[in-house]
């Protein structure tokens, strides 16, 4: 880490680069503030608290996000249940278990780089595979499978990076004490890599929770008036609802879109907090990998 300026240094703002960097930061932070402000100001015109539970409607003052909110919760839950174990398990297997062959290496590289594929492409594949191939139709389940296909590479990429960042000594010490590979994985590697693996899970879930494009491809934005109660129910989600409302010129719908956007951002923040609460604190207690790294590198 690059040290802070020495105490005797001149104040940074005399330097031209500092001024330019400060202006850029102002632009970036102002963008964030303006977006938050616009959403909040626009959401003032929402019909009322019924907005959270009501179904969508042709009349702006009666419309709500009930089914979309329930659909998004279903989608995130199912995607989490499918993609997170598969992604983390794949990274664990390919990094820790698989024989170090060219095939294992190539598999890991390909799976990781699928994270760069645009979300709408997963929508096309989901349309052909799940909606039509498996005959699931435009259902919650088809949507969750599509979003899982999109999330798995992100989870693999970040879990792989987390596992590779662990000090080698962690594995060596555990093996030297006679631990089996599973014991090493379960009791040493997983807890130590957990913060970064969970960060990857969060990134994947946030990306899929906000994804509108793949859901638009696998099914039209439906005007279903009931909240989905099972994975077989028709697809409804907040991002597609926002899309449908954004493009309507009539008065009132912009407020609905802003309200739905706020709900989505709030849901993302809740998810971030929940995942943050899950992360074990071993790393900060001095018996985790941080401590190993610190002692291993010594004072010099």
């Amino acid at each position, binding site marked *: *880490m*690059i040290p802070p300026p020495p105490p005797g240094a001149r104040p*940074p703002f005399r*330097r031209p*680069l*500092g001024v330019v*960097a*400060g202006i*850029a*930061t102002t632009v*970036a932070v102002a963008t964030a503030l303006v*977006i938050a402000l616009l959403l909040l100001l626009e959401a003032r015109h929402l019909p009322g608290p019924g907005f959270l539970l009501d179904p969508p409607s042709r009349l702006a003052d009666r419309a709500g996000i009930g089914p979309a909110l329930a659909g998004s919760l279903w989608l995130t839950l199912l995607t989490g249940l499918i993609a997170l174990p*598969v992604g983390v*398990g*794949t990274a664990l*297997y*390919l990094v*820790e*278990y698989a024989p*170090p062959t060219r095939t*294992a*290496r190539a*598999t890991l590289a390909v*799976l990781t*780089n*699928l994270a*760069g594929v*645009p979300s*709408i492409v997963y*929508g*096309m594949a989901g*349309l*052909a595979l799940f909606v039509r191939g498996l005959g699931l139709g435009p259902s919650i389940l088809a949507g969750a499978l599509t979003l899982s296909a999109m999330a798995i590479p992100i989870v693999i990429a970040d879990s*792989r990076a*987390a596992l*590779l*960042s662990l000090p*080698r000594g962690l594995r060596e010490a555990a*093996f030297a004490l006679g631990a*089996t*590979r*599973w*014991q090493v994985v379960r009791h040493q590697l997983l807890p130590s890599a957990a*913060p*970064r693996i969970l*960060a*990857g899970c969060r990134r994947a879930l*946030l990306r899929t929770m*906000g994804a509108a*494009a793949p859901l*638009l491809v696998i099914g*039209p934005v439906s005007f279903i008036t009931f909240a989905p109660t099972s994975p077989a129910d028709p697809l409804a989600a907040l991002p597609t609802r926002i*899309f449908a409302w954004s493009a309507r010129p009539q008065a009132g719908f*912009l407020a609905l*879109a*802003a309200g739905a*956007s706020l709900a989505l951002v709030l849901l*993302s923040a809740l998810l971030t907090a929940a995942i943050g609460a899950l992360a074990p604190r071993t790393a900060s207690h001095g018996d985790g990998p941080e401590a190993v*790294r610190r002692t291993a*590198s010594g004072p010099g």
Partner: protein
Amino acid sequence: MRRNGGATRDAGAVPEDAGAATEGAEAGRNGAEGAGGEAEAGRNGVGAGWRGRGVGGGGEGAGRWILLGCTVAAVAVALAVVGTLAVETLRFFAFVSPLRLVVDSAWAPLAEEPGFGILSLVAGTAQIAAGATLLAIPVGLMTAVFLEFYAPGRIAAALGGAVDFLAMIPAVVYGCLALNFVTPAIAGVWPDVGGFNGLSAFLALAAMILPTIVSMSRRALRAAPAPLLADGLALGASRGRVLVRLVLPAAWLGILGGVLLALARAVGETMIVTLAAGNPQNLDWSPLEGVRTLTTHLAQASLGDLPAGTLQYGAAFAVAAALFALGVALHTLGSGLVSRGEDGGRHGAGVHP
């Protein structure tokens, strides 16, 4: 020691894209090969080898099989996705010569005389994505420099939080804001701007990829050899001069990698461009008019509920295959450069005691 301190800090609070390998290059490998390389190194160090299972412990066999099952599932999903795209695209090429993708001037699969000039869509994608990335690079890089080298710790954390908020906003929300706020604002300056225009799309797209560029640049700057700044300052150079002459050049591979990853997201972004730039057949390059990209074509085509087996269904898969190839190529190149950059930083650091 200092370098490891930086890495330690990195492990805790991870911004948007910083989940990837900060120290993935620890074993001295780089690029896409890093994975297997390190797995190998870890195992060689252990000496037990991968056959050393079943020594004891109840979960040993079951755990291994469960993880193998996960891998099989992930590979199966990946193969299914790739296979579907390949089969549908090849089926399309059975009817339409791949040559027409390049020869035809316009992309109009529904027209009476269908055109399959995919290059017109690629041009639209390039215009929007490159424009947004070019706008986001200076702002993002300079923000990263400010947060890493100028802002005091607590202020940097607060400002970084605001940038992370940008990363949490879904693309469709950016699209909504671009259509309903940015376009009217532009119309106040140029009254003849279209209701759907490339300018508002590219502004919103730039805001969307900004947090990626900031977090990747911050990572690259942190991976730069720590003593550079101290050495430069000790020699009497100003802080700005040291940053521009020494630190930024040392970090440029990682920064470029981050830019390519951001470009991959910009290329694949659908909702912003669909909402803000509409989808006209636009062949002049005015940013005040609407723009048509690879992704908006897919969105528009599928909003009409694509009928399977038709020519436009196949055409949509050809576009999807092109997007797939672009996305994978940019991601491979970008993440390769990122780990190369961090590797290089390590070697560079070896020069300094």
